[in-house]
């Protein structure tokens, strides 16, 4: 694993929805090695702990990364104050990302709410082989749909209240897709109950499934053992660490 820490310049910032911002960061040495599913660990000015945010886009040509985040508490509020030209303090790229496989013919990418951003690098990788299912509370919270379309992937949009796309949960279209039997893998990120349901569905159909988990972090690199999550491997239970062993896990390893 390779990572570095420094202050990097922000090339651009935009608001995607209420309290949701997209930031592009100039960090060639990080962009060079970053993988889909990895994250960056950002220090909001004046805070003690860093905040983990998934990588939403990687441009090796431009030497930039893009992140998309929602203002949740004081730390993300502070990060949201940054503007084009400002410096952002990052430790990156971190974690074990998604396993991509060139031989896969058809994959499903499922993002729930602020879990959609890490699906974008996968959509770019798989292109027309990907079907992206995105789920949001309602129309105001919908983000990144054009970005997904531009990758060539097929997109399916769901909202809880039906204010945009289909009304209902992302698991409905997933079940439909899995019925046909030609899906090689499911990749997903979002709220834990959603991940658990998706893992169960994929498991039942015996489809390879990777989930991206969240846990509160200290170091972000595997040293402090703060970000424990229960996993099983070869039948044995043990505490893995989301920052280093994850955030992406084979869904069969996770103990929900």
């Amino acid at each position: 694993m390779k990572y570095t820490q420094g202050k990097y310049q922000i090339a651009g910032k935009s608001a995607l929805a209420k309290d949701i911002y997209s930031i592009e960061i100039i960090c060639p040495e990080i962009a060079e090695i970053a993988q889909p599913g990895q994250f960056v660990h950002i220090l909001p000015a004046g805070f003690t702990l860093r905040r983990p945010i998934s990588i939403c886009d990687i441009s090796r040509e431009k030497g930039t990364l893009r992140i998309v985040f929602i203002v949740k508490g004081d730390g993300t509020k502070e990060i949201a104050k940054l503007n084009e030209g400002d410096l952002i303090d990052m430790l990156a790229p971190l974690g074990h990302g998604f396993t991509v496989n060139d031989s896969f013919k058809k994959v499903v990418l499922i993002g729930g709410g602020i879990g959609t951003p890490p699906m974008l690098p996968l959509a770019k990788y798989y292109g027309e082989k990907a079907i992206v299912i995105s789920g949001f509370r309602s129309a105001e919270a919908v983000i990144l749909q054009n970005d997904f379309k531009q990758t060539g992937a097929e997109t399916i949009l769901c909202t809880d209240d039906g204010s945009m796309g289909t009304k209902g949960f992302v698991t409905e279209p997933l079940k439909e897709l899995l019925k046909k039997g030609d899906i090689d893998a499911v990749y997903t990120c979002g709220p834990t109950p959603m991940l658990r349901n998706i893992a169960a569905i994929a498991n039942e159909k015996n489809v390879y499934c990777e989930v991206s988990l969240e846990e509160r972090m200290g170091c972000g690199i595997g040293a402090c053992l703060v970000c424990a999550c229960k996993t099983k491997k070869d039948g044995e239970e043990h505490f893995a660490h989301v920052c280093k062993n994850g955030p992406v896990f084979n869904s069969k390893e996770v103990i929900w």
Partner: protein
Amino acid sequence: MADLSVNICGVDFKNPVIPASGVFGYGREYEELFPLSALGGIATKGTTITKRNGNPAPRIAETPSGMLNSVGLQNPGIDKFISEELPNLMTKDTVILANIAGSTAEECVEIAKKLDETDVHMIELNISCPNVKQGGMAFGATCEGAASVTRQVRKATKKPLIVKLSPNVTSISDIAKSVEAEGADAVSLINTLLGMRIDINTRRPVLRNNMGGMSGPAVFPVAVRMVWQTANAVKIPVIGMGGIATGEDAVEMMMAGASAVQVGAAIFTDPFAPVKIIDGINQYLDSHNIASVKDIIGTVEPW
């Protein structure tokens, strides 16, 4: 470039800066960022006799200028530490402090015996972990408890023995005196201050373990006070920690009486904190024309 070396209990440190137990693992992850040989020493994660999973997550919370943790001594157990981590660490050209944290005095003794047969430079006996039900802080809360476990571990090892003290007591200097009397070669302090945060929307403690240990800059003035009181009460060296984030903080802690310092939470804020602190100490010494860092230890002049 001032002379940064210090000697504690006969062990030479190239500089007085040591990542604290629990934040640095066994160094593998930070070695990606800087060579471990730059450090004065490394205090390893607290080790128990058998593997421990620690407490359920969440195990961390942010607080004003600080943090709470409730990791609860997750570690692979002493045998794996000795076979899989220690040999690698011993090649790093830095002093290794093996932090031990048994739930009973007997367990501490057993771990110390095993370490006694290794090349590890020093043993740091943690009698102050606030995040475990047994042992931990319970040992460190009374002079009798602290003295008793120190006495037993002292018999089990000829390695330099540092006893790590809890700040959650009425008189830390009394506890220090009682472990000194039982043969501790040094004391290190402070471990974390017991704290709690509540999520007012869910009405649940933020940490799954309800309470956790507070560290980071917020605790620095308490740590400086305790190091000062302790250094004035004992003759053995004091290793100071608690909230150190800059070279100036390290200088202040050493003036209070610390012969070396450990750095915990600051590493989360800035993974390069230990090396920046070493630089900062050097800069302070150079700009004040002080030849050796040894010349500032315990030099505060009280009013």
